[in-house]
């Protein structure tokens, strides 16, 4: 067979395959599955489809272990995004995705296109995006590149999300030297749809038109999918021209145009063009539908002249979608996309051949059996080693006044206020934001109702590093706890699994064990996974990132009138601690920041205790007894108390005298509650019978935080410490932003 190429193209040798990221045995497998040598375009297509990013070849066997079902799950993993029932025929659609490597290379555009990509995953399902979140991990603040990366990533996320008009309501941001050479930028989008009007990606209907909509195709990001699957090395600089530029304005038009078309019955199936562009979208749609697909690449709207079949198939130009329409619906689509000034072209048909055929200049350029691309793709059960639970370490607490420790913790990179970030994100557009960054979970109203969705991202990578199984469990449990803390019923999670090279057994072990921990927590808490993303090879010269299974949690508030926030509301309210612990300082921020090391086991997670405490809190909020609640997480009790005081602009007088382990230990499963005296008393009286541990710590009063036996710390001093670190850090910005 002779296939037409644009230029004289090199033959697909094993060396060229290796350049595309295919290992020797994978290339041999390819030739076997195909029964002949591929041409260059075909090689590119195989390499993209068989990349870690598209094929999940190293993670698949483990991802299957995650619980994905519950009566309220409408659509689990496998589609562009997951969906859960939120009553009244409505569903929440959500997913989180990484854009780590591109953001390291070009922070603004990398982060911006990350937001664009996850938005498309959600509106592809027929959902209007209603909220964005982002989980960010940067290297050591003292590292030469960090400041520039922080400024660029934050500006990029804001630049994209603000323009499309979807509020960015929450997320997280932390720093650790393990991310010096590999930052993590994970973006999450939540959308709202009618359960009956969800759109899926399986192609169907022999002869149906394949329609391309959105931006034109340029030579952007060719190799992107393979880049995301290769470790960084010294010559990653050379991979630079592959960076894509985002166009949020076009994305906004694409959202409106797609939703307008989705309101008709024109669409049979739809998929966004993400990593590996036209290749992955056409292959996945056809393979899912068990049909074939034929593309005329001459009909693809291009931005540049003379693009080859290889380039058109593998371009990662942003803001594009592929649709299968009902026959005859082309004109309706053309009309809508013309109104929004977007490209719309019929570029092919669905066939019954089970093959992907693409023509360029009228001649066949690609002809591949889909089975070879999809079913024959490699799946690896990579060797892995389990990490034992570290031995407890002796901890000698610092000889510092408790108040001084608190101020140092509040003024630290991880525990300091992230206001500098959140203020650059439009979090009030759409006029449904009820609570945004700063609390345990953000809350957005379901438009036109009195229901709300509670949203957050969560992970403590240091715990995962110390003991991956506990860390995985903890990440899910804390996500669940944060939802309970605002009064929401936790529904489901999405995840973004960021790890180093799966080819190293210890990294594979971290992955496997984090999954097992997540699985345990998901099962114990009825908190299934409905979507997710895996990003491997986050390492440079053998230095991997901390294992980071970022969790995106979604919960439902049936009545926004019954919710809680962490801000203190009334002087005189009694502060109660729900749950208790020995004061676990190993792997805490206290140990890291005050004692200067990270050692020992992470705090254990008692999942049944977690469940009891969460349900108790939720019941109090639902009954209207509780409106002030905060989960206790990194930094421990005193940091959480200070956050409550600052948010409510109301001081706290503590009546308990305790040591550093009590105030700064990071024991799990705990909440702080504030409520009027009488209510607190009756709660305390009933706690024992309910099998819960409640302890009175003090009360809200004045304009200072007062620890017994220490001088009061004014709210002003607390605020200065809490708000100070990040703005001061970025103000030293001497790098381009």
């Amino acid at each position, binding site marked *: 067979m002779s296939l037409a190429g644009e230029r004289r193209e090199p033959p697909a040798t094993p060396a060229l395959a290796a350049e595309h990221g295919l290992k020797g045995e994978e290339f041999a497998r390819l030739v076997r599955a195909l029964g002949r040598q591929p041409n260059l375009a075909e090689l590119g297509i195989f390499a993209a489809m068989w990349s870690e990013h598209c094929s999940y070849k190293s993670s698949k066997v483990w991802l299957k272990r995650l619980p994905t079902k519950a009566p309220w799950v409408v659509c689990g993993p496998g589609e562009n995004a997951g969906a859960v029932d939120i009553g009244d025929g409505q569903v929440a659609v959500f997913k989180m995705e990484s854009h780590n490597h591109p953001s390291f290379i070009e922070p603004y555009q990398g982060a911006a296109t990350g937001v664009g990509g996850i938005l498309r995953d959600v509106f592809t399902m027929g959902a209007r995006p209603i909220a964005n979140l982002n989980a960010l991990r940067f290297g050591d603040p003292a590292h030469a590149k960090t400041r520039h990366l922080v400024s660029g990533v934050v*500006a990029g996320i*804001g*630049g994209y999300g*603000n*323009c*499309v*008009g979807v509020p960015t309501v929450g997320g997280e941001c932390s720093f650790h030297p393990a991310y010096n050479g590999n930052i993590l930028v994970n973006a999450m989008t939540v959308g709202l749809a009618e359960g009956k009007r969800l759109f899926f990606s399986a192609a169907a209907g022999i002869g149906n038109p394949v329609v391309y909509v959105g931006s034109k195709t340029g030579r952007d990001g060719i190799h992107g999918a393979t880049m995301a699957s290769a470790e960084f090395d010294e010559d990653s600089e050379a991979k630079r021209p592959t960076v894509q530029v985002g*166009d*949020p*304005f*076009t994305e*906004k*038009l694409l959202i409106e145009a797609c939703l307008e078309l989705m309101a008709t019955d024109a669409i049979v199936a739809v998929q966004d063009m993400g990593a590996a562009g036209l290749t992955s979208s056409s292959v996945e749609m056809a393979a899912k539908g068990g049909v074939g697909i034929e593309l005329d690449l001459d009909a693809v709207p291009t931005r540049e002249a003379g693009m080859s079949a290889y380039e058109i198939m593998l371009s990662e130009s942003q803001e594009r979608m592929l649709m299968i329409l009902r026959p005859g619906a082309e004109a309706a689509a053309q009309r809508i996309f013309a109104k*929004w*000034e977007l490209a719309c072209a019929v570029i092919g048909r669905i066939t019954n051949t089970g093959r992907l055929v693409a023509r360029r200049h009228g001649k066949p350029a690609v002809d591949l059996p889909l089975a070879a691309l999809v079913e024959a793709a490699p799946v690896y059960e990579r060797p892995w080693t389990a990490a034992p639970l570290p031995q407890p370490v002796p901890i000698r607490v610092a000889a510092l006044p408790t108040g001084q420790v608190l101020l140092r913790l509040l003024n630290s990179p991880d525990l300091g206020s992230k206001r500098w970030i*959140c*203020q*650059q*994100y*439009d*979090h*009030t*557009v*759409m*006029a449904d*934001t*009820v609570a945004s960054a700063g609390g345990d979970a953000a809350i957005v*109203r379901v438009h036109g109702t009195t229901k709300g969705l509670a949203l957050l991202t969560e992970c403590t990578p240091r715990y995962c590093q110390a003991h991956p199984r506990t860390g995985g469990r903890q990440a899910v449990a804390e996500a669940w706890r944060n939802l309970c803390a605002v009064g929401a019923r936790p529904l489901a999670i999405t995840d973004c699994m960021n790890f180093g090279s799966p080819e190293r057994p210890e990294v594979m072990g971290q992955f496997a064990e984090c999954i097992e921990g997540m699985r345990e927590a998901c099962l114990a808490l009825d908190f299934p996974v409905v979507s997710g993303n895996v990003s491997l090879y986050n390492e440079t010269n053998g230095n991997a990132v901390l294992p980071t299974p970022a969790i995106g949690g979604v919960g439902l508030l049936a009545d*926004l009138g019954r919710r809680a926030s962490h801000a203190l509301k009334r002087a005189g309210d009694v502060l109660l601690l729900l749950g208790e612990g020995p004061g676990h300082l190993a792997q805490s921020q206290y140990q890291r920041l005050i004692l200067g090391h990270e050692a020992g086991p992470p705090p254990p997670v008692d999942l049944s205790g977690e469940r009891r405490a969460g349900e108790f809190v939720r019941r109090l909020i639902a009954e209207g007894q509780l409106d002030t609640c905060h989960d206790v997480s990194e930094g421990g009790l005193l940091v959480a108390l200070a956050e409550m005081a600052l948010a409510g602009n109301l001081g706290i007088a503590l009546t308990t005298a305790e040591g550093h382990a009590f105030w700064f230990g990071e024991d799990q499963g705990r909440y702080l509650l504030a409520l009027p005296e009488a209510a607190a008393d009756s709660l305390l009286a009933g706690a024992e019978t309910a099998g819960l541990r409640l302890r009175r710590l003090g009360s809200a009063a004045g304009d200072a935080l007062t620890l017994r036996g220490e001088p009061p710390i004014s709210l002003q001093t607390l605020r200065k410490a809490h708000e100070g670190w990040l703005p001061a850090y970025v103000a030293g910005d001497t790098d381009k932003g």
Partner: protein
Amino acid sequence: MKAAVVVFPGSNCDRDVKVALEQATSKPVHMVWHGEAELPKLDLIVLPGGFSYGDYLRSGAMAAHSPVMGTVVERAKQGVAVLGICNGFQILTEAGLLPGALLPNAGLKFICRDVHVRVEQSQTVFTNACEAGSVLRIPIAHHDGQYFADADVLDRLEGEGQVAFRYCQGPAAGPANPNGSARDIAGVFNAGRTVLGLMPHPERAVDPLHGGSDGRALFQSLVAALA
């Protein structure tokens, strides 16, 4: 009151302001695509916030040339009330309906947070429900909100009572300036005070769930004056 909200490519507060208007008027609000040059008889035209044309080139520049804008300018000249919020304010200055221009924020960053603004004029269709000198808490969300005009233009605006709102720190507190605006100006009127442009988003403060409902005063004023 018959009100219309213009939708430009890239508008993203069109629905929000429609909701706020409908809440205040209990009447349906007409949504107008920017390509329509014909408009029905209207009492109020709103240019909403967002990023018309992506804010590319200059915010508001391209939208100011949309087909609908010729008609908006005509109606404004006839005295029909025109309200531009955020990007709508930028469009009004680009279209020449309001003096001055909006430059990138002095800090060169997008700012989204609540601000306080002092009501400088209460005898207008937009502010009659407020007392002069009263202070409203309303969110801002913009990258290009730094109000600029030549000194003589500013003097004239102040002299003629065309400054609508100024940023301040709070009800009994001094001036504030989140974005470097000349003379702390957050909103201005045309000479007849029938056209208002302002950077803060009153439509995002009309419900206790928003954390405040000071923005309602503007919509109530419009109802009182135009219904």
